[in-house]
């Protein structure tokens, strides 16, 4: 099993979308797989030393709202200031209550399990990310090195 490989391209930088790459990678590593995650565009947020990820019901009709808020909030209400902060807080406390790991915890478990994390050099430059704001020990590379690993991987996911 040690020779199975998984490649994930992580493109989203919100609290909810941080989970799939880190859950799958930490688990794959526990199953003995070699894992690379290539972070590009908004996915770069997941590499910041200090994560500040949010979740918003805005433009996300599938998000279950606590206390049936979707019944008495018009769609535009999801855009009011403070809504994202409140939703993020509620989501985090619900996750904690249900025994769901934090993103930080899952990311640490990935690093401990030697999941290789690669930042897309082009989007790092595009958005003026400072490598000092990102995790130490990650790699910086481009599409061809991502594809080189992907071509060799048994599981390829774009998240």
């Amino acid at each position, binding site marked *: 099993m040690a020779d199975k490989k998984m490649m994930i391209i992580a493109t989203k930088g919100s609290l909810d979308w941080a989970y799939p790459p880190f859950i799958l990678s930490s688990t794959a590593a*526990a199953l*003995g797989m070699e894992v690379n995650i290539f972070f590009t565009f908004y996915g770069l947020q997941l590499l910041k030393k200090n994560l500040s990820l949010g979740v918003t019901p805005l433009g996300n009709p599938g998000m279950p709202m606590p206390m049936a808020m979707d019944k008495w909030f018009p769609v535009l209400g999801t855009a009011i200031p403070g809504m994202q902060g409140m939703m993020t807080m509620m989501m985090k406390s619900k996750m904690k209550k249900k*025994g769901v790991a934090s993103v930080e915890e899952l990311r640490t*478990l990935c690093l401990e399990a030697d999941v290789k994390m690669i930042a897309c050099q082009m989007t790092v430059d595009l958005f003026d990310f400072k490598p000092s704001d990102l995790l130490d020990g990650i790699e910086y590379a481009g599409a061809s090195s991502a594809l080189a690993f992907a071509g060799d991987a048994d599981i390829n996911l774009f998240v």
Partner: protein
Amino acid sequence: MADQELDARGLNCPLPILRAKKALNDLEGGQTLSIIATDPGSVKDFQAFAKQTGNELVESGETNGEFTFLIKKKA
């Protein structure tokens, strides 16, 4: 009696598997780990974990909404 025990109650996917993997790292081949969990998804997950890693799932059961597993580390 298992060589080591792991209490994964209250933890949700994928933490029971990750904690089990960590606990197995400290065992010798042939030693056993018993796990107790409350995540109903862990039943299928431990079967898959055993199949993928080659560690043997010797027993699994349920009592009062708690799931128990006994895993024997691959020699």
